[in-house]
Structures are given as C-alpha cells and as structure tokens.
C-alpha cells in the first residue's frame, strides 16, 4: 500500500460522480479530502481532478472557484496530479464541445467529437496500447506501463498527441486517440481508472507511489 498517511485532495467538479474515485482511493489506503480552495489545492501533495458532464460546465466551475491558476501552476511544477475523463480534456486548449471555453492549456491539443461512423458516446472497455508508436522524443510511460483494458464513457477525445514531454498511450475508436498522457508526476486519463478493474486500480496505485517518491523505475 502506498503511504499510510497520504492524503489525496479531490476537486469536486460540480456534477461529477465522486463516489467511485473516492472509494478507489480509500481502498488503496489513502485519506481523501475535498477542496475547491485554490490555496489548499496549490499546497496539497496529491490532487485528483475528476470530471463528468459538459466541458462548459466543468471549465465554468473551475473559473467560478478561481482554480485555474492553482491547477496550472502545480502541473507546471510537476506536482502529483491525476486528471480523469473530462478532467483530462480540461487540461487541453479547449474542446469542440464548447468552442468559447478556454481549457487550462497545459496540454497542447484540443478535444473533438467522435465521428458518426461509431456509436457515440463510447461506452465500455477499450484496449489501451502502451509503447506502440513511441519515439525517442517521447519517453515511455511510467504509470501506464502495461497494456490492458480500460473503461470509457466519452463523446469527445484528443486525437493529436500533446507533445511537450507528454508520453501517451493510445486506444482506437474510429482511429487512434489519446488514452492517457503522463509527464513527470502528472497523469491524465481519458478513461476511468477507478472503474477499470484490477488494471485500473494498479495504475492509480503506481501514480500514488511513484508520483510521491520521484523517479524510481516502474515495477511492472
């Protein structure tokens, strides 16, 4: 189990269902705190940015609580941060879902809708392929270090890899899209690791442990 006394701060983004992520974190032995206070979020050791619902509502919620600066700052400073689903999309520049709403912009990519050739939303388990298409410029993922199946519930996704040192694993639904991206201690998942069974729990556990202890080698 990762550290006995570790507290993870979850940002309760408006309409998100938090029970699953909170349950998963507690099962891994962490304490869970909720906060929408920018000072607390800036100071927290580990922060989770979940997200379910519309892009516009999610961004508005962050801005209403003045959280944009605190989140960008901690991600740029490589502080342990996990963004899930809409949370990941909010790290990008923006989304086709809400053209007027600027994302946090720490990932240089933009969310677009799946085409009508596939069923939308994507609901279910899709393969996350690790290592395929990786280049020397994009170091291998530390957290997402084994391929597996992940649970998705999304209508929008990032097709472009964000670059800037982000390592990506990909899934395929009407073509490749970014399943997750990680850089240092920051992990962003389009899928829901908290609903992805044993594989997802192991991923969250690696993020809790590795993000905390620095650059040690992955254990899987």
């Amino acid at each position, binding site marked *: 189990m990762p550290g006995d006394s570790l507290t993870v701060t979850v940002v309760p983004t408006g309409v998100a*269902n938090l*029970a*699953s992520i909170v349950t998963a974190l507690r099962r891994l032995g962490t304490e869970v705190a909720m906060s929408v206070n920018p000072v607390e979020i800036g100071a927290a050791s580990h922060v989770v940015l979940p997200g379910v619902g519309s892009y516009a509502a999610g961004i508005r919620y962050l801005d209403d609580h003045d959280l944009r600066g605190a989140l960008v700052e901690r991600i740029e400073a490589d502080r342990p941060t996990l963004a899930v689903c809409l949370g990941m999309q909010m790290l990008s520049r923006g989304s086709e879902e809400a053209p007027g709403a600027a994302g946090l912009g720490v990932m240089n990519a933009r969310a677009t809708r799946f085409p009508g050739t596939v*069923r939308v939303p994507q609901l279910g*388990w899709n393969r996350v392929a690790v290592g395929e298409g990786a280049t020397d410029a994009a170091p291998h993922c530390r957290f997402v270090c084994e391929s597996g199946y992940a649970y*998705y*519930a999304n209508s929008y996704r990032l097709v472009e890899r964000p670059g800037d040192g982000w390592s990506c694993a990909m899934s395929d639904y009407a073509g490749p899209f970014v399943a997750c991206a990680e850089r240092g201690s920051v992990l962003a998942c389009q899928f829901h690791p908290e609903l992805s*069974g044993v594989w997802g729990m192991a991923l969250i556990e690696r993020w809790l442990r590795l993000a905390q202890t620095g650059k040690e080698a992955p254990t899987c």
Partner: protein
Amino acid sequence: MLTTRIIPCLDVKDGRIVKGVRFQNLRDAGSPTEQARLYETQGADEIVLLDVAATPDGRSTQLDIVASVRVALSIPLTVGGGVRRVEDASALLDAGADKVAVNSAAVRNPELVQRLSERFGRQCVVVAIDARRSPDARSWEVVIQSGSQACDLDALEWAKRAGELGAGEILLTSWDRDGVGEGYDIELIRAVRKVVNVPIIASGGAADPEDMKQAIDAGADAVLAASIFHDGRFSVREVKAHLAGRRVEVRLS
C-alpha cells in the same frame, strides 16, 4: 477496439436479489454485494442493479445497497428503479452509481431524459425500455410499471425519441422473453439498432452464451443476463470464453 460488454443484472427487492419470469413469481437469488463482487472477479464488465420494488419509502434502503455494492466493485455500476425526478438520480449517483436507468417515469415524462442528460451528461443516462410484442407480432409496444401496464407507445419510436432526448444508451428488455430462457428477441434488437446510434444493451431471454452471440450479431453492444448467472449455469468467464471462440471481441483478464 471497443469490446462487447457482458453485464450481470441484479434485480433487487427488499435488499435481496430476486428473479422471476416476465417480472412475476420472484424467487430469492442471493446478496447483491456478494454476487456483484463475485461477478467482477469472473470478469463482468459492468453491473446493473435494478430495484424492482422501488418506492419512495424504500429509497434509503436502496441507497444503502448502492453504497455497499459500490464499495465492493471497481467496475461500473448502473442503477435503476423508481427514478422519477432529477433528485432521485442525483441521490443514486452520490451513493455510488455511475449511470442511472430510467424507465416508467421517462415514458410518462420524456422531458426527464433531457433534464438528466443536461445535468449529468449523456453518458450517465440509460433509458430502460421494456418491449412486448403486439398481438399481430409485427411490432412492439412499451410496457411500464414492471410490465403491468401497456402504454400504447411503439417501442421503436420511443427508442429513437429517447436517443434524441439525450439517452446515452438503451437497455432493451424483451418482456416476452424475460426469465423464459428462449434466447433474446433478435428481431427487436435488429429493429431498434436501425433507429438509434447510441449503444444498446440487450436483455431478456439468455439461456446460454450462444444466445448472446446472436444478440451481438443483431447489433447489441452489450448483453445483459440474470438467471443464467444467478443459477450458476454459466460463469461470466465461461460466457466470455465462448464468445471469444466465436470471434467476438471481449475483455479477457
């Protein structure tokens, strides 16, 4: 590639799993928390929990069960039964549901689907449709109140409308086949597939894994079953092994 989901369904009444035939003659089939956990370890992709006797009085019991099943699971949980208002859905999500299924209340008040979708996002909203073949056997009508009431509504029209209103998926149950074990109503699945682009969960009638293969071929994105799992005739793992052998993409762990 997105895999086909295998979904055990827990029909819950007074805190216990029950199963009947055409929604009647319910018999006890175990504890929801224990069964949900067992099915996850067997490789279930999701659990659906339907409170077949949900009433306003039973609401807090229902929420306790959802919370205890949630703690036992690390896969998605869909909950339905007695969801009449946005607040009911909100309470279920807070208790640990990942998706909420609406049935009778959505038929009476279609706007509910839209409101749920706007509030929680389409991916959170499952519209459950219980469809019964009409006497001429050429169309299906929607039945509500656990099948006790016909409502002069064509099932295909309702499925299409539900998708337009904001349903993220359709849980399509054949009333005629529920608990009967004669296979899914393949024609029903095929007909609904033609009119909606959201995922379809086929339900009602599975007797063996080959029935599921037929439903998938007809256009189901997920197959739901209760009796064959509760009775121990097949484990989820056995169902998936069969389907993988029949070249259906399933998540094998």
